[in-house]
């Protein structure tokens, strides 16, 4: 059985990747399972300078999902290169650096730094709903995405993934803008802007008032967007949003995803990535797929 996936030259040993922001820099989950088993790891979103992040509470439980408002707390790209890459590189898995900037220059500077670092791909986060400047502002319009992507493309020597926001009228426009501007791949979806209120205190549950929705609740929205995008662009699509098991992962692949990322479900089941890989194998066996990549887009309409 062939589980490998080739994303614009980036070769994954299997299509299951840890989603950015839910897996830190891999250290914590390495106590639960062997990171060598993963297709890849997208690290916590990086910014040029270290960021403190938003005030707590940063999480609210909602029906079949969570809202988070972490706000890109991270040690900055330099500390990542210095302190985290050496640890991550001990494992034979693809390392994807997820980056977010306030300005186009921020994105480019980080892409330069990371192009010289020992990582495999850069994921442009133009879709974080939890920061006031930059980021989602770019990700909300095709022009914004074009601007960032084409600027970064010029300096980026790694596989370039653009991570799309679902908080838009037409996700295919965003994907096309990314493709046109030089992205090797798009990943989607980031979180959907949401809010929860504690009716007893009459206050927002989150310190930041609003936050990003993820988890099973968003899955049908994410599947639809992956389906639309994979019909609209020729570059590969990494699908995510509410995946909790192999069945969900297969659903995204049938919709057109070449690989999947899993985030929130790992909070509940720290073995979700490993179990998903195993489950995909079982699905392939049962349905006679020799290559996992044959599942991609195998929807019958």
């Amino acid at each position, binding site marked *: 059985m062939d589980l490998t996936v080739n994303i614009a030259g980036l070769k994954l040993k299997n299509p299951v990747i840890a989603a950015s922001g839910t897996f*830190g820099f891999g250290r*914590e989950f390495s106590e*639960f399972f062997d990171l060598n088993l993963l297709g890849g790891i997208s690290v916590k979103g990086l910014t040029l300078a270290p960021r403190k992040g938003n005030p*707590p*509470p940063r*999480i609210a439980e909602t029906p079949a999902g*969570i809202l988070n408002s972490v706000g890109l707390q991270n040690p900055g790209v330099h500390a990542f290169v210095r302190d985290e890459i050496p640890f991550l590189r001990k494992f034979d898995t693809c390392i994807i650096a997820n980056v977010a900037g306030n300005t186009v220059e921020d994105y480019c500077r980080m892409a330069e730094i990371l192009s010289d670092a020992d990582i495999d791909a850069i994921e442009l986060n133009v879709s974080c709903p939890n920061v006031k400047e930059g980021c989602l502002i770019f990700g909300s319009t095709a022009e914004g995405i074009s601007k960032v992507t084409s600027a970064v493309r010029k300096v980026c020597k790694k596989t370039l993934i653009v991570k799309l926001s679902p908080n838009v009228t037409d996700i295919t426009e965003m994907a096309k803008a990314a493709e046109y501007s030089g992205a090797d791949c798009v990943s989607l979806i980031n979180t959907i802007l949401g809010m929860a209120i504690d009716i007893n205190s009459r206050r927002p549950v989150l310190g930041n008032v609003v936050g990003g929705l993820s988890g099973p609740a968003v899955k049908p929205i994410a599947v639809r967007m992956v389906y639309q995008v994979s019909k609209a662009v020729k570059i590969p699509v990494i699908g995510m949003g509410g995946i909790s098991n192999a069945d969900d992962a297969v659903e995204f692949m049938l919709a057109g995803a070449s690989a999947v990322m899993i985030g*929130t479900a790992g909070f509940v089941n*720290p073995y979700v990535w490993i179990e998903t890989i195993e489950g995909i194998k079982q699905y392939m066996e049962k349905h006679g797929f020799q290559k996992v990549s044959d599942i991609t887009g195998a929807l019958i309409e």
Partner: protein
Amino acid sequence: MNFNAVVVKNEKLAENIYLLRLKSEKISHNAAPGQFVNIKCCDGLDTYLRRPVSILRTHGPENTFDIAFMVRGKGTRILSCLKEGDAVDCIGPLGRGFTLPEKGERICVVGGGIGIFPLLYLLEKSAGAYKAAFLGFRSGGLVVLGKDFEKAADQLIISTDDGSFGEKGPVTTPFLKYLEKERPDRVYTCGPAPMMIKVADACNERGIFCEVSMEQRMGCGIGACLVCVCRIKHNDDWAYERICRDGPVFRAEEVIFE
């Protein structure tokens, strides 16, 4: 690290307060005071995230540990209905616990409400120290584990907000009075923020070693998601640190309460 613990008993301590004894060799043998377990209260979507609950004590020989909790919402309600033999999906022990005192040291624990639970474990593991316990509750009906604290501590002062049991008023009043005359080597506190702030301030002013156990909503519970933070001083600046992994126990002088 992800274990199915089995319910050995479920005891109602007071209205809405329960003690669960759970069998898990790994958790019971590896736990330390101040650590917690992160519990999936039910399969499926109804309580989606795990719930963090402090370890109340362990019983090494029987491979069991206890947790005590108050029913607050859906998750703790489900836990309160567990029956002997039920399996519970627990991750733990998690977090950084209390610094245990040296033999012969004088320690105080100051706890409020559900904050008393990790302190009992600390007292029971602080053999050879002289131990004073200050516990505060909203009212007498909520006073639980009094006998256990009495046994574990050399001195026990209980207060209730409404005076229906012990001294009337906040638990910080007898504690601050105590500080006027005594200088403990170590103070440990867990409970509502206003209480912990008072205790921390009093200790910091006097240069007394003090540890606080912090509480915050959690995502992963293991340090990966940066959801459960509190402000910790770093030289002239501060940073958000993770309660689930860098804590829940922090040095009082480092914490900047919101």
